[in-house]
């Protein structure tokens, strides 16, 4: 293990976190909110840690391997979540550190699960805009990734950066869009910033207040889902809801495709099978849910437009793993008919495309799993079958298929473990439904769950919150980094 490189990189991440924290600090100062000093203290803490680590721990060699890459990514994310939580604790907005840590894990992992109750959010919207801004800004940072951010802005990249990039970027395989990792990271961030800016402008034009547009654009871009109102998006007008729905879908698509569009390679961009599967799932499930909603008498649905809007919005929100809700106050997702709830539950597993900011298993992984199953079934009928599995116009190697299968197995195990550990909690009104959906929702980085958890995660005790915090990071980083960092064999020098 190259400890020096690991801690040196964490130091750089600490400095970047300090710089990013300056933005809400300035906002707090401008709005004359009491939290500015809490934010400033955190800037100071992170800056000191960062400077000490970068200057005291100079790496002897830059050589890193996949093990170091995974550990760097996991520790960086734990660091930003742990330190990012400090402003909430120092300002007593969220007095309990575990709660604040949960909120930040949820922020950086772009989950959007919150321990704040609806009333408390409305209250903070009045008094602590800067902290709510920071909460949503973590979605934006976590969406494209902390390390990718570091890579895009740090000069002098090393040859082995791919190990780190691969550990952070979602999807079964990671492709660079240009030869150099640094340029790739820059292009991704430019696209990301561009799309976010367009959404902010669109929301502003549609009539959302400026502050709210920023916050919701961050939440959409990272496919996070933190809102600033008790009823999430529902109190904004229909135009705003449509804009957010469209952008949730856009941010669930592989960013490499946008780059191809910019290069005017429409043909190869539209050849992407993953894109069409993603679009297909959205169309089919919104249609089914529309019919289902139309047939059941919901109080908040009065006309055909409402039916379509609610179903498309919820489908987009769940498949992109954002977690915003268009359901007005007084009702929640539990009011949906059973079939719709069932479809949305399954959409949680699928998630966005590989290389997007969405969470979940990823469309390409689900597709590969289905193809692998089909191959196995074929083998049963024709034991000598030698057909290859093809995806995106290329033959998929057995190694990749096995990798996907292994990932799925591990994913289900972790899901089971999380669910089981949640069931230890003796909290009131917790049911199998609420615990199962909470586990699925956190691992897939969506946010809302069914049952009592539909209104927030505040009813869980500290242990469950900790479990869910880790579940969220595990889901965002796709299992291996966090698991390997906590495996003793990674650290023992042998």
């Amino acid at each position: 293990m190259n400890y020096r490189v690991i801690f040196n990189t964490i130091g750089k991440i600490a400095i970047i976190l300090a710089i990013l924290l300056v933005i809400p600090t300035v906002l707090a100062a401008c709005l004359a909110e009491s939290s500015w000093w809490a934010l400033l203290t955190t800037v100071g803490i992170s800056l000191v840690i960062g400077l000490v680590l970068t200057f005291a721990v100079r790496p002897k060699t830059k050589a890193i391997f996949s093990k170091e890459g995974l550990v760097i990514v996991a520790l960086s994310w734990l660091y930003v979540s742990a330190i990012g939580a400090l402003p909430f604790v120092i300002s007593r907005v969220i007095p309990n550190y575990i709660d604040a840590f949960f909120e930040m894990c949820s922020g950086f992992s772009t989950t959007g699960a919150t321990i704040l109750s609806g009333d408390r959010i409305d209250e903070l919207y009045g008094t602590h805009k800067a902290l709510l801004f920071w909460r949503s800004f973590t979605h934006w940072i976590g969406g494209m990734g902390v390390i990718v951010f570091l890579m895009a802005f740090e000069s002098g990249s090393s040859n082995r950066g791919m190990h780190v990039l691969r550990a952070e970027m979602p999807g079964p395989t990671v492709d660079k869009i240009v030869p150099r990792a640094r340029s790739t990271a820059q292009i991704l961030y430019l696209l990301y910033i561009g799309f976010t800016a367009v959404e902010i402008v669109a929301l502003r034009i549609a009539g959302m207040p400026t502050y709210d547009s920023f916050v919701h654009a961050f939440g959409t871009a990272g496919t996070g889902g933190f809102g600033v109102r008790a009823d999430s998006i529902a109190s904004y007008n229909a135009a705003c809801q449509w804009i957010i729905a469209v952008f949730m879908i856009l941010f669930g698509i592989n960013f490499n495709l946008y780059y191809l569009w910019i290069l005017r390679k429409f043909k190869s961009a539209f050849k992407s099978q993953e894109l069409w599967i993603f679009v297909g799932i959205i169309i089919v499930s919104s249609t089914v849910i529309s019919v289902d909603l139309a047939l059941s008498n919901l109080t908040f649905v009065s006309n055909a437009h409402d039916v379509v809007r609610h179903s498309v919005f919820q489908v987009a929100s769940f498949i992109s793993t954002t977690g915003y809700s268009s359901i007005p106050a007084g009702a929640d997702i539990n009011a949906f008919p059973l079939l719709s709830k069932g479809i949305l539950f399954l959409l949680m597993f699928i998630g966005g495309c590989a290389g997007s900011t969405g969470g979940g298993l990823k469309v390409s992984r689900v597709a590969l799993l289905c193809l692998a199953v089909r191959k196995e079934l074929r083998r049963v009928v024709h034991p000598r079958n030698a057909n290859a599995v093809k995806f995106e116009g290329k033959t998929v190697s057995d190694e990749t298929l096995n990798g996907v299968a292994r990932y799925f197995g591990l994913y289900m195990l972790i899901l089971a473990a999380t669910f089981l550990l949640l069931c230890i909690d003796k909290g009131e009104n917790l049911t199998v439904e609420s615990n199962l959906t909470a586990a699925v929702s956190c691992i897939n980085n969506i946010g809302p769950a069914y049952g009592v958890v539909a209104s927030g995660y505040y009813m869980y005790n500290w242990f469950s919150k900790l479990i869910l915090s880790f579940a969220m990071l595990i889901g965002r980083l796709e299992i291996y980094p966090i698991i390997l960092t906590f495996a003793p064999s990674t650290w023992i020098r042998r």
Partner: protein
Amino acid sequence: MRIIVAGCGKVGKAIIDSMTKDQHDITAIDNDPAVIEEISNMYDVMAVCGSATSREMLLSARVSKADLFIAVTESDEVNMLSCFLAGRMGAKHTVARIRETDYNEDGLDFIINELGISMALNPERTTAETLFDWLKLPSAVSVDNFAGKKIQLLELIVRRGSTLCDSSVMDLRKKCPIEFVVCAVQRGEAVHVPMGTFVLKEGDKVAFMVKRAEAHKFLKSIGAVQKQGRDVIILGGSTTAYYLAKLLAGNGFFVKIIERNEERCADLAEILPSGATLIHGDGMNHDLLMEEGIKSTDAFVALTGTDEENILICFYAGSQEVPKVIAKVNQGELADLAEKLGLDSIVSPRKLVADSLQRYARALNNTLSSKVETIYSLMDEHAEALEFKVLSDCKLIDKSLKELRLKSNVIVGGIIRGKETIIPSGDDKILEGDSVIVVSTDAKLYDLSEVLR
């Protein structure tokens, strides 16, 4: 610059390695998925799996936007074809490795011109030419040529009791009547650009810049001259051995090639010049080496296909007091190890090829105020010697070297003005149209003006 490297074998990897250090945008093509996996893990490049001669592959590697296309796959024919295709599809410059002797006779120019290939690489021939230079000046560890072979850079190791040992650069200049510049000194891991007061110690590796015509006299004056050997034993009948034997035999050396494969022997016998002796037998066998006169030979060159064999047999040759022993070692790690264990002269064909391509790539940057003509990496790649052509708008023109505020890790080692070669002192000036040789440690130079502070 956008560079595409087709074929990621030993040479391909060496090229990618040196090119990534120069911050180029590189796309690597290979048809082995395992190799592609390895490349994308090791280097910051785009690695794609497929055939270098397929149109789809070249399209997806965006060959039309490439400034340089380098084909170094196993097969000469694939290299030629892919370069031809790449050129037709819009790559600005193409380089193909063509190493079969059949292609490398008189027909090479015809092939290159007809296929529109910018440059043909022949690692074996390049290696042979380098070895030939080394064998002519046996006391130097290695020899590099500049300015159309007018200036040479000699690397020497300071031995105990020699004139070099414990004398400063200034003293040395007083003692020696020949003009020279000490460009770089490697001591342990560190490489220095020495000042006049720098004192050389035993075990240092020193690079001297001298006029080629005076190289022999220079070595004599510092007491480092060795009798130029006439007898050379080459172990392993590779293509490199063939080229080297041809060069040596043509220049009055007595060459003996030892090759263990009978078929290869028969092939070599067909093409070798009459001055060379061919022995069929296992060169790792000490008795055979004794019989063929290893005790009395002047130089021993190990060119078999296995690095480890070359290193081991060279240690044996060294123990038999052969004055000049050279091993071909391709793997960088092994070369470092062998050097630490005391093997001075090591030739690495893939490093030579990577150097020559790096030189070619930098020379393509013609927009700058000077142009790179030659590059050699020295001192285990810790330093570089570059030859620049000075163009009119260069900042260094018309000032004496004393006045120029050069960086501390840079030294001007030679100036070539028309037919005149100057080993510069502080009073010399750089003029337009000169070629200037600069040695620098650690920094990568692209332009002559970068030597200034």
